[in-house]
Every structure is written in C-alpha cells, then in structure tokens.
C-alpha cells in the first residue's frame, strides 16, 4: 500500500493516532503538549470521525488534575479515553494514575517529556517529568523521532488494550514534539487493523453500569490489601511480550520493525551506550560515522 508522506511535527503525529483511537479526550493546556489537545479539539469541531465513525468528545478541564479525574471517570464507564500533558501537569495526574493502573484500565497518555520546574521553570525537554511517575504502575514507552511517535502511539494503544496495563507514551518535549519531519502517515486502515474490537468490547464490559452493577475504589484494611495488591502481577509479567507482539503486528502492517530494546551497531562491540529519546537518533548517526572511520 502506498501511504501518504506528510511533513508534520511530533505533536501532530501523536494526536493523529490518539484521536483516531479514542472516544473521550479530556484536555488541559501545558507547553509543549498543548498542540496535541488543540489538534484534537479542532478536528472534533470539524466533525472528523475516528475509526469507529464517531466524533470523539473533547472536553477542556480546569487543571491536569481535573483532566486526569475526567479521564479516570470516562475509563471507568467504558470509553476509550486519553489526554495529553507534560512536566508538572503530569505530576498533577499522579494521584489518578495510581488508581487507573491499580484498576488495570487500558489507556495511553501522550507526554511531551519536559523539565520539571525546580530552581527555575523550564518549558524545554528532559525526562524529569516521566521519571517521576515510574512508581505509578504504568507501562512507559519512548519514541525517538516524529515517525516513531506516530507508530508508537498506535503500538501503545494496541498493547494497552490487550495487557490492560495503562501506558505513558513519551517523546522529547520540543526536540521531538515540535520538530517537523517528513514521515509516512499511517492509513486509517492501518490503524483499524491494529485495534481489536473484541478488546474494545472487553473494556466496555468492565464498565460501571447500573444494569450490571459493580463497585470499585473500595477501602481495604491490613488483612487483605497486600494480597490484593499482588494480584496484578501476572498482567505486568505478560506486558513485555504483548508489546513485542503489537510491534510485530505493526511491522507486518506498516513495515517498520521495533523491539523492546533495539541494539544498533557492531555485533561484536565491546563498549555500549544505553539511552532513550531523541538522543538515540544522534547516537545512531554518530556511531555510523565513527564506524565508517574505523
């Protein structure tokens, strides 16, 4: 299949897939993630439909904390739901992120990784925000380039539906979120092929509904909390293989191959660099050059 080549930035690449694969989107602006929310809002206003022929509901909240609350509520009632954020905005979502993960709820948050304000505010990129949510129980998947942002948003969406573990999909603020690159745009059929509707229905079937009522968010005492907390282990143990499966399926559809860890360089190398994010692209370029120089 011949796919369209587009010259867009990382935010648009993420928003494109997120919009197509979600039903409810709760938003709040924060640099450098705001364009993703703005795209979603603009497309909804233009009545652009997602892969199920539905116009996603896009709602601005009063803070990232509020956006996370609305996302949590929408997920609990069975809608595929997402949001976009960065930096201290992501931190405001932490209280809900623990609950969303603890309830094994599939969702992908797209995060333009940005510096946390410390001695000074900075709107630019590093991983201090995403590293602050490591303990929340989310899968975390990183994209290094604009093309990867589009691809990984979809891979994450497919993997979260199957694993039930929520995903933070992050890429470098400004360097990737605002970098314009010519990339191959995934076709709607590609996206459709990656999403299994049975998993969407399974998510719906776990919803809160008065027609088949259930209860979540209980308070538990020391007698049972610990055991109940360990009951999620199998889902985390299964997640790496599920992600790889989604990557393999993606490769069979779009051709680009990804792995949980992609080693690049000489097979007999003795010195290895390990890193995540846009720096990987530069490292690759440098390794290529150094290698060619012997």
């Amino acid at each position: 299949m011949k796919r369209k080549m587009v010259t867009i930035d990382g935010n648009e690449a993420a928003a494109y897939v997120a919009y197509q694969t979600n039903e409810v989107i709760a938003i709040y602006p924060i640099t450098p993630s705001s364009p993703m929310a703005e795209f979603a809002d603009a497309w909804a206003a233009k009545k652009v439909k997602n892969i199920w022929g539905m116009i996603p509901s896009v709602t601005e909240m009063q803070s990232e904390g509020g956006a996370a609350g609305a996302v949590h509520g929408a997920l609990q009632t069975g809608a595929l739901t997402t949001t976009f954020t960065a930096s201290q905005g992501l931190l405001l979502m932490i209280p809900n992120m623990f609950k969303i993960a603890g309830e094994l709820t599939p969702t992908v948050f797209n995060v333009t990784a940005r510096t946390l304000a410390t001695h000074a505010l900075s709107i630019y990129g590093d991983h201090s925000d995403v590293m602050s949510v490591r303990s929340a129980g989310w899968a975390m998947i990183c994209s290094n380039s604009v093309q990867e942002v589009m691809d990984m948003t979809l891979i994450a969406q497919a993997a979260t539906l199957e694993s039930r573990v929520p995903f933070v999909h992050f890429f470098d603020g400004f360097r990737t979120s605002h970098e314009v690159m010519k990339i191959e745009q995934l076709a709607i059929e590609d996206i459709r092929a990656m999403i299994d509707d049975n998993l969407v229905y399974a998510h719906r079937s776990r919803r809160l509904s008065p027609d088949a009522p259930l209860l979540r968010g209980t308070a538990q005492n020391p007698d049972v909390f610990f055991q109940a907390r360990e009951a999620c282990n199998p889902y985390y143990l299964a997640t790496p293989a599920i992600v790889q499966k989604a990557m393999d399926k993606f490769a069979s559809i779009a051709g680009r191959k990804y792995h949980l860890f992609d080693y690049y360089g000489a097979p007999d190398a003795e010195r290895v660099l390990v890193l995540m994010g846009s720096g990987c692209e530069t490292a690759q370029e440098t390794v290529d050059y150094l290698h060619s120089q012997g």
Partner: protein
Amino acid sequence: MKVRLFRPFSGEDMLKALPKTTRAIAVLDRTKEPGAGGEPLYKDVMTAVAESYTAGKLPFKSFPKIVGGRYGLSSKEFTPAMIKGVCDELKKETPKNYFTVGINDDVTHSSIDYDPHFEIPSDTTRCLFYGLGADGTVGANKNSIKIIGEDTPNNAQGYFSYDSRKSGTVTVSHLRFGAKPIHSIYLVDKANFIACHQFVFLERYDMLKDAVSGATFLLNSPYGPDEVWEKIPPNVQKQILEKKIRFWVIDGYKVAKATGMGSRVNTIMQTCFFYISNVLPKEEAIDHIKKSIEKTYGAKGEDIVRKNFKAVDETIANLFEVKVPGVADSPIQKPPVVPPEAPEFVQNFVAEIIAGRGDHLPVSAFTPDGTFPTSTAKWEKRNIALEIPSWDPNSCIQCGKCALACPHAAIRIKAYDEKLLKGAPKTFKSMPARGEEFQPGTLFTIQVAPEDCTGCGVCVESCPARNKKNVNRKAVNMTSQPPLRFTERENFNFFLNLPEYDRRLLKLDTVKGNQLLLPLFEFSGACTGCGETPYVKLMTQLFGDRMIIANATGCSSIYGGNLPTTPYTVNSEGRGPAWCNSLFEDNAEFGLGFRLTIDQHTSLARDLVKRLSSQIGGDLAGALLDAAQTDEAGIAAQRERVAALKTVLEKINSPDAKNLLTLADYLVKKSVWILGGDGWAYDIGYGGLDHVLASGRNVNILVLDTEVYSNTGGQMSKSTPRAAVARFAAGGKAQGKKDLGMQAMNYGNVYVAAIAMGANDAQVAKAFLEAESYDGPSIIIAYSHCINHGIDMTKGMRQHKAAVDSGHWLLYRYDPRRTEAGQNPLILDSGAPTTPVKDYIYSETRYKMLTLSQPEEAAKLLEGAQRDVDDRYQLYRQMADLDYSL
C-alpha cells in the same frame, strides 16, 4: 542494617557499614512498584554493590547474592516469624528475588514460606481489648497506657488496630508493659489479659486463642457471675478451662445506664482493667483515671466529667470474678459467620474477612483490578443493637417518616396484596394500607431488620404518631433486641420476599410514596444515627436502578465502599447503583467523566439503531429513539424495548449489531450522581466542582454538608459556620460559612437546592426529583448532622429543624426551568427565622464548648453569627421576591 539517610544515597558509607563477611543480602522494601523490576531500596543497594565492583573496590570476598522483597504493605503485620523466614531464605543456594513475605501468593508465587509459630519468649505483660468502633475503648486504652507509662516505672507500648469502617466494627487495643524496653513492633498474639467490651463479639471472634496459660479474661456481660457460664459459647468455655484462665464479668451497660453514661462503657472497663491487673495501687489508679477523664472530656463540659467520675466509682461494686465450673457444657452454638443461603463469593471470601481471617486469604482470592460485587452488607449480621424499634399498627398513621430517617435502611415499609400474607410468620404484623393510590385489599407493614439495626432510635424520634392510650408511646417504640431477634429475623425475611410495590403507581414526591420504594443502599457501616445516609438511601430509592455514583473520599466513601461488605445493593432484576471512588479532590471531574462516556456511548448507540433500523424493525427503532423517559412508566417501557432490541440483535450477525449489543443499555436514561462531603465540595474539590457546574452537562451533585471534615475527625472546612469550634479552629471559626449554593446559582443554568430532612422532608423529595429531571448540572446541598457536632445522635433530625428555624440553614430551590417560563427561578421554602441563632447553636457542643473555654470570644462570634443569618435571609428573601415576568 538500618538505613537512616536514604537520600542522598551514599553507597560508599553503606558498604563501610556492612560486615566484610557479607555473602547474601535481602533488601526489604515497604512499597510496591509494579513493572519496575525491583523496589527502590533494593535497586540502590544493588547499584552500590555493583558500583564498588565496577570500581574494583568490592569489600567482600565475592559479589554477594542480593535479593529484594516486599513486606508490610498497608500495615500488614511484620513479625519475628517473617524475619526468620527471610533469613532462612537467604541461606538457600538461589534465594527468591522480588519476593513477598507475610502473605500467601499462590498466583505468581512470590511469597516465601515461614513458620508462623515461631515466637520470641518475653516476660512483658501483654493485653488485648476488643471494643466496638466509636465506643471509646481505644480512647480509654490510650489513657491507660499513658498512665502506666508516666506513673509507673514500667516501659509501655500501646497500639490500636481499627477497621477503617466508620463505626460498629471491632477495634482491638494492644498494650504491652514491663521492666524491659519493648522492641515488639507487631500486634500482641500471646496475651496475659484479654478484655471483651462487647458480649456479642464472643460469637464472632475467637479472642481467647491468643490467651496464654493463666491469663485473665474480662467480659462486659449482661449476665452476672452466676449465670454467665452457660451463656458463653463452648469454645470460650473450653479455652477458659484448658488455659486455666481467670474469668471476670461486669455488666458495663447497667453501670453506664445507672450513672448517666448512656451506652458508653469505656471508662468503666478501664477501671476494671486497673483493678484486676494491679499495675498500680487501686486508689492511685482511680485517681489517675479521673485525671485523664478531666483531660479528655473537660472541654466538653462539667456534666460529662461528673458522669464519668460516677461511673468509675460504681464500677468495682459491679465487678465479679466468675467461679468457673469444671465442665464446658454450653448449649450455645456459634452461628455461622454468614447465613448458609449467602452466595458462594460471600461464603468463601466475605465471610472470611468478617470472621477476622482475611490475613489468610491467598492472592488468588482477589480480583486483580479491585472490582467487587455490590449487595454484600446484607450478609453481615452485626447484631449491635441493644434495642430495636417495635411497630404498633394501632397507632401508626403510615407516614413513612421512620423509614425515611433510618440511617441504615433497617426499618422499612411495604404495601402488598392481602393474599400474600398467607404463610406469614405468627408474629408478622400488618394493617390495611391507607390512601387512594392503593387498591382495596392492600396491606401495609413496617418491618425492622433486627440484626442490621444499630439501635439509634432515630425512627422513634421521627415518628409523629402517638398511642392514644399512652401518649408516651408512639407507633414505633424501642424494645430490647435479644428476645425479638429470632422472630423478627423470620419476619424480616418474609417481608423481603414480598414483592415490591409497582414503582409506576407511587407518588414519589411524598415521603410515604418514596419510602415504599426499595432502598438500594442498606446496612452500611455509618455511625449510629448518621445524618448523611438517609439522603443517600433516598437517592437510591428514587434513582438507584439507573444510577452511577462517583463518590468523593470521606465518610460516604468509607461507609459506601469498605471491604468486606458493600451497602449498595440491587433490585430483583439485578439493577442497582454502580459505584466508584476515585480521589478526594477530583470527584466532580470523575463524575463528569462518567457523563462524557454515557453521552458518547448513548449517541453511538442511537446512530447504530438508525443504521440498523431496517433490520431491527422500523417501529421498534423509532420507538427506541423517540422514547420520552420522563417518568417511571416511560423508563420501564424503554427497558422493555431495549430487551426486545437485544433479542433481535443477537440474531443479526454484523459488526454493527455486535457493537450495538454492547451499548444497548445506554438507550435507557442513566443518572449520574456525584457524592461527597463539604470538605470535598467547598474545599479540596471546589475547583473541579465549579468547572463541572459550568460544563452544562447533565450531572447531579449531592453535597452531604456536615460543616466539618467528618471522616478525618472533625477539622474545619470553609463550610464550618462562624462561631463553631472544630479541629484547626480551636478558638472558634472567625469567618462565616461559604455560600456554595449562591455561587452555583451565579451560573444561571444550574439547578440548586438546599435541603434539611428533619425540617422539611417533602421539600427534600421535591429537590431530588427536580434535580434529577433537570437536563443540566444540579447541586443539592443537604444539611447533615454529625457525631462531630456534639449532639445526641438519636435526636439529630431535631437539629435540622432548629437550624432552619433559626435561619442558619435556608431551604430553597433554584430551578433554571422557571426562568425560561418567565418566573423567578428561586423559591425560598423556609420562612423568616423564628428563633435566635443562639438557641440553635448552643444546643450543639461544637458551639457551646467555646462559651466555656473563651466566653468573651464566644459572645463576639455569636453576634457575628446572628448577623450572618439576618443578612443572608434578607438577601435570599429579596432575590426570591424579584419579578421575572418583566
């Protein structure tokens, strides 16, 4: 090795501290990070050792084995036996990594084995006290251990384990004292002294299993030393004999009643403990108890202190050692934890937790995502009421007020065809139903749930009827529970099996009408006499079969969703409230999220009906899309259509049909309720609440306004009125109460009501029905009396009336639909204040106590409080009088 400075983590110093002989390290983290590949302390230790290896500075002979494990999550016990288990694990060739200790993980097998019988011998005195939540046992034991610690040379330790439910559940106080320093940071399991402050606990908890040989057992018993033996279960008798336990009894409730303490036995039992244990000379002990009473209750008034003193003085004369007969011949059979007809999940899971064996449940017993079925509270028969209401049909006027006011749905009314009375138990009572809405031959019954009632007496207090022969008696009267327990249990079961009255035929805006609806919120763990739960219950009666609740953290989330049992329940069709608690601060947004999904999925379902209409059948499709659903009949009709739709869809093999099948229920109108207290609505969640009010979306918000942070123990919120004392406002609140309703009215398109059940229950029903029917945001602010107010909880509803009479609480309804009709949207349902504010506020300890501690400040604040009320009434009066027809 003890880690003191965790950050910055100095690996070098850590390695210096470790013995050079180290060969294996287990790092124990008290946290869990799913997906992290090890918890934080483990990773730091591993990194430090690996770093020293990388640098060629490893201080050990070889790279040690390092494993990480989790222990003690959520205060799970961490005992010497578990520590020995970890040490034993480290001896193995390949010790388990990422292990857990203290649980049985039969799913991913992370848990390591240990010998639970391993223990460390000790000559410290160890005591256990079993009390009922909120009965004062814990408070008294805190005082006891302070007395022992400060007034004797002993080392002392006190720890108190609670069930996090509001009240009515067990609390266990663990006290240790002795000559040696105490390092036992775990619960007492080998006790020299065990006290049971609630007789009924004997049939529920095997408390003597922890008694050592020759221990002392103190029982609060309605039976004296001569008759108690045959009233206790056989396993208790057996252990008393086998372990040669000295057995003491006191009728604490008798002493409490005689000394004006009501049902508070805490200081009485405390006095017994000191008397029996001989920690201190008796006179000295009593002297210390009295001092601690003064300290604890002094601020609440002289009267309370005096009554406590009296109770202490009369205790010893009522305390007896039982001459234990030689044989265990008790006729008492320990009842099953839950009735045998309870479903499997309740038998295998809920009952284990109720019985105090939750620690033994393995990981596989739990859902991985925290989901639980509703409708389980009805299986936990707590039997905590000393007295329960007994109905007198001859005096009853069938108003329904008893059922409305009941905080626990433990007194109910039903109307039914007289033919159904066949086979009723002998003592089952009924009378002809009065009212034009009932067919001739319809009977009416008021029935109590004897084992679920908490004995608060609110129903009796709310009963307006009088017995004509004896005006002191009403149509419901408190009567001793034990003689009625079994007959009324049978009656209640018969009552439950009577069919519900047809909802479509009831006048829901009347108390009698809505109280004939099945409550879908029952037997919660809320405080005895709770002021919030009657509203919650009414809400579920009116809308429970189609409602989804977002519940802010607080009292309402604790009594609403605390394991092991859940009070939300289902009707005979299996419908009932779906419930979830997210956080404290995000509840409005969380509920808005519900609405976003419901709107989105409803709209998708409608699109699919349109798309499939030729296959569904044009008539059915058209009727589904055009259904009015404005009343119970309309909703019932739509439900029937949806059932028909599902039958059709199951026969259609297409992706659209499959999709619609997952969404068809959304074609029936759903009711989103956002529930929480004033701490949430006025303070921490206000930003979100305001945003949701501004959203225009169809959500209903119920604020259970206790004017204080109730769940955390009574701290000031912005709802706390001027002059009230609360924690964090020890000198009385200097600012006035925030007018949340006024702020909501500002939007113009928000339905707003302020209600108080004890003042005007008809207005309460109207407000609920109007709020729910309004297609936009609605907020109801409900005056809720609370144990934190310092009132007699039996008479809580009286405080509603006093609050409204004084003008402190205005009753009103602001309905934007009236504006559209050219009418003033605001209706003030309460009249001009008829009593001064001080009459109301000084009937509550929260205000009164300031007049004792700081009389001048109190007088000043009272003046301000009166001005608040006067000004606010004038403002509302003028607003309600504005002419909107111009």
